[in-house]
């Protein structure tokens, strides 16, 4: 008769701290927020209103205009990151992993440094650089005879969001670069050698051999960018304030949530509508991540070495 396996207490014991901490600071607040969005105030008492807050958010023309505006701006913010940050990150990683490049460690560090800077510093420094009054941008453009290209970008509705997205790209381009760089380094030399034996070198080697091998990393970067962008708030808040000017052209879901939840200037905070927006944001990110996990991740081919 086989002896019953003893209960493995140590698994529970080792998991407990992480589970407890994660539950206390993530799971409970998350469900608290979801729960809060189902209530509202009536005569100073909190009453259950079901989905009425969502009806207001999507049905009331003012709320829904603000919401769709923020969502579209957020999408545009994400598009710029996907179209600029990630290709540049991959390109930099490809250059860095080239054995012919000298001072690679210096470039790697220099490009990665902005990532560890605080948003406040980045926002403030770029505001100064781009300032039409004290900034160095107008002067530098003037020096090369391109002064006519200068505009007060952060103050113009048509450029402000793109400008801020590019500032954010500047700050975070180091992250895709590092991840891809690591992925490129992990490609075994024999695969590369085999490719060279078959006559594949340079760019065609990158496209046909390396890129397919780093696709899973690119997938992870995309989803990180997606989650980061749809949760972002700091840069816009630092550069443009909670009203996300000019004329709400830089308003993203994070600033919209902040304004609603905490109130702004004379407007008192509304935790219930704030929680409603937070829930909508949660749903958007959840859907995005699910599409990625089930639609893309499972189809990515992985290569075992």
């Amino acid at each position: 008769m086989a002896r019953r396996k003893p209960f493995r207490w140590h698994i529970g014991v080792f998991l407990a701290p992480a589970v407890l901490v994660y539950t206390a600071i993530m799971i409970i607040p998350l469900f608290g927020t979801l729960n809060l969005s189902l209530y509202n105030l009536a005569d100073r008492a909190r009453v259950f209103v079901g989905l009425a807050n969502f009806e207001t958010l999507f049905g009331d023309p003012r709320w829904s205009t603000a919401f769709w505006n923020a969502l579209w701006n957020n999408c545009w913010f994400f598009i710029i990151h996907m179209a600029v940050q990630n290709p540049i990150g991959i390109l930099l990683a490809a250059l860095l992993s080239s054995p012919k490049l000298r001072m690679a460690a210096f470039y790697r560090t220099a490009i990665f440094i902005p990532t560890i800077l605080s948003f406040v510093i980045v926002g403030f420094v770029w505001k100064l650089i781009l300032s039409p009054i004290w900034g160095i941008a107008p002067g530098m453009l003037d020096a090369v005879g391109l002064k006519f290209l200068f505009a007060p970008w952060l103050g113009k509705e048509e450029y402000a969001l793109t400008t801020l997205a590019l500032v954010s790209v500047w700050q975070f381009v180091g992250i895709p670069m590092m991840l891809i760089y690591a992925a490129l380094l992990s490609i075994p030399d024999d695969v590369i050698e085999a490719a060279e034996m078959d006559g594949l070198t340079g760019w065609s080697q990158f496209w046909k051999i390396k890129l397919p091998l780093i696709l899973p990393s690119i997938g992870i970067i995309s989803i990180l960018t997606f989650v980061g962008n749809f949760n972002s708030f700091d840069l816009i808040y630092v550069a443009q304030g909670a009203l996300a000017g000019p004329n709400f052209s830089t308003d993203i879901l994070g600033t919209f949530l902040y304004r609603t939840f905490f109130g702004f200037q004379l407007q008192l905070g509304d935790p219930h509508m704030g929680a409603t927006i937070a829930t909508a944001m949660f749903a958007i990110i959840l859907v995005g991540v699910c599409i990625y996990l089930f639609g893309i991740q499972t189809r990515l081919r992985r290569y075992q070495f």
Partner: protein
Amino acid sequence: MTKTFRFALLASTLLGGAASAQDVTLTIESWRNDDLTIWQETIIPAFEAQNPGIKVVFAPTAPAEYNAALNSKLAAGSAGDLITCRPFDASLELYNQGHLADLSGLASMANFSPVAKSAWQTDDGAATFCIPMASVIHGFIYNKDAFDALGIAVPTTRDEFFAALDKIKADGTYIPMAMGTNDQWEAATMGYNNIGPNYWKGEEGRLALIKGEQKLTDPQWVAPFEELARWKDYLGDGFEAQTYPDSQNLFTLGRAAIYPAGSWEISGFNTQAQFAMGAFPPPVAAAGDTCYISDHTDIAIGMNAKSPNAEAAKTFLEWVGSPEFAALYANALPGFFSLNSTPVEMQDPLAQEFVSWRGKCQSTIRSTYQILSRGTPNLENETWNASANVIKGTETPADAGKRLQDGLASWYEPQK
């Protein structure tokens, strides 16, 4: 020897403890962290000298965090005994929640006019919950040296005002006016609510708007936007991205001639600017017209309803309501004008200029502050956005007026 020493130490601790136990310590919550030294060095010592046994601690929070921090402290029961009050709804809400005590019974309340108290009263005026401290006045500060060099007289009418701006622009040495639209609030506060009272006749228009007798689409409410739209040509290059500190620096560095101002700038400008400054109230339509100024009730102080030191706190509040405090405060902080009915002698010439307008013009407060910013969309915040848009020329004055009116009418019963 050591033993004796220990006993001496112990005894002195006990005695010291007993002595300080008779002292009551009052803590003041405030957002005016700029004023910390003034409270510590001027105001609190003056009070403590007269009231032995009461110690006062001034404990400010950063302005942007004040409302949120105060609300959570009050909810948690850890807030100070004295609460610096924001005007209107933010404080009214605290009173309604039972966090601020009703101070209507204080003797020194009699030192304040009804308008001064209006920002810290229930809508029916039955209860006043904060002692008014100061108001700020809007107008224009100008660079006297620039005006003298260009031979410009201080404008009193709108035509003179724009003629002066044209002259400064034609000369080219100075940016005619220092203002930007990046932070939005200057456009509304130092723009719309600065020049507006001359159009809507101060209190008359403001109260009519609250009663629903006037609309934001009426000519007197749209005309200030039309004037703002004309400002565009006189602002500096790239004003769209110019922030509030940018504007302050442009003016104090002597690069701009006129600064649409609030009187709170006075002490900062006095230290920064190297040239002579003057001030003029918002110009009127024709010479001799009654002028109206925004004399906005801005800061007051109330009592935490759950304070264990209510008696001491009331003593302090009575003192804040006294002419003595008014003189101390107004002179320590030129630009924050006492709301006390007893006139205060002020030393600062620029502050004197500002306060002299109270004598010749009708005072009013910012049109959007009382009652009208209670709902969503919030009229004050919408006005920021509309004023900035109008100056930039991305929205016409008529459209801005219509948008504000529609927003207000969507939740405010008398405007429906």
